[in-house]
């Protein structure tokens, strides 16, 4: 199992939802985000299968990302202006893969720094680099790597996790109201309980 897949074992409940958007097959149909109370209960066989499908799909994401990255590095003009670099079709396809590749981009920045800043900005819509550090390679890399660790999960990444969860809970509440059922959710997610959920998932992720 690749290092990426091992890390994503804890986060597979999130990324199958992301993978649906990326068009990759095998993505789980599981709910995009578990409730905090579910974080520590044993997984059912069906959920285990969905999780494995998610991990298999993540391997495909990693493979596709590396293929595109290598193609971009091989085909780009190394002396071209920045726009020419990130308008390359392979670079654009990487952006099109969405948030699932953000941890891979951060890993690349850490191990083989390259012009990945535009991809990260375009995908995440975030800008963790202070104004004074614009254009300074090492501080920009460090700002992004710090941002990638901000959700306090070893070396993982949860893009705007609380916004995703918020949207999910809102839809769930609306659905239950339509069905005339009292909602089982006890409240809207906050950054604090999302971090707690993340820690729970990360601990749980080590078990099959």
């Amino acid at each position, binding site marked *: 199992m690749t290092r990426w897949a091992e890390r994503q074992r804890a986060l597979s409940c999130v990324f199958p939802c992301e993978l649906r958007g990326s068009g990759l097959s095998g993505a789980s149909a599981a709910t995009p985000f578990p409730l905090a109370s579910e974080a520590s209960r044993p997984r059912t066989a069906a959920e285990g299968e969905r999780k494995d499908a998610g991990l298999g799909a993540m391997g495909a994401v990693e493979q596709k990302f590396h293929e595109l990255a290598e193609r971009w590095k091989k085909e780009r003009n*190394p*002396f071209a202006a920045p726009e020419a670099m990130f308008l390359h079709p392979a670079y654009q396809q990487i952006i099109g893969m969405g948030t699932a590749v953000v941890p891979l981009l951060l890993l690349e920045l850490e191990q083989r720094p390259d012009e990945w800043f535009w991809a990260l*900005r375009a995908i995440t819509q975030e800008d963790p680099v202070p104004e004074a550090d614009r254009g300074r390679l090492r501080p920009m890399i460090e700002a992004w790597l710090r941002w990638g660790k901000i959700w306090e999960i070893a070396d993982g990444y949860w893009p705007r996790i609380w916004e995703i969860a918020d949207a999910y809970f809102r839809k769930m509440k609306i659905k239950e109201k339509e069905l005339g059922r009292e909602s089982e959710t006890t409240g809207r997610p906050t950054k604090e309980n999302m971090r707690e959920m993340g820690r729970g998932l990360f601990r749980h992720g080590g078990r099959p």
Partner: protein
Amino acid sequence: MSAEIIEAWFPGLRVAGYRVTSPVDPAYNCVAWAADEVDRRWWPDDMGVYFWPAGVPRKATLDTFREAFAVRGFLPTADGTVETGIEKLAILADGWGRPTHVARQLASGGWTSKLGIHEDIEHGTLEPLQTDFYGTVRLYLARPRPA
């Protein structure tokens, strides 16, 4: 970046001659080098990733490059003829007028260029850099040469 790769992209350099004057250093690019900076990259990308002088629009045009270097005391000049006590820049642009490269003139009359984020080179003239991807020299700027 090997000489082979440099000369593959700039065949004119092989003919006209050039000298590599620095190792690869991704900390700065051609525009920063022209502004005599070696610790950050300059470019007017609209996402604000690279440095660009405050107040100058983040758009890659000859006008914005002229404005950006005006902050450093450079003003438009007629050509790249060497003049004692004067430091000149040459801005290359593609067919759409989008800047692609900036070279700085040395006191000797030759030019120094940072090739992307790779090596610095010294070259006698600007012709070898005028390729299909760099375009042609479209603007010269000048200021009194710093001491």
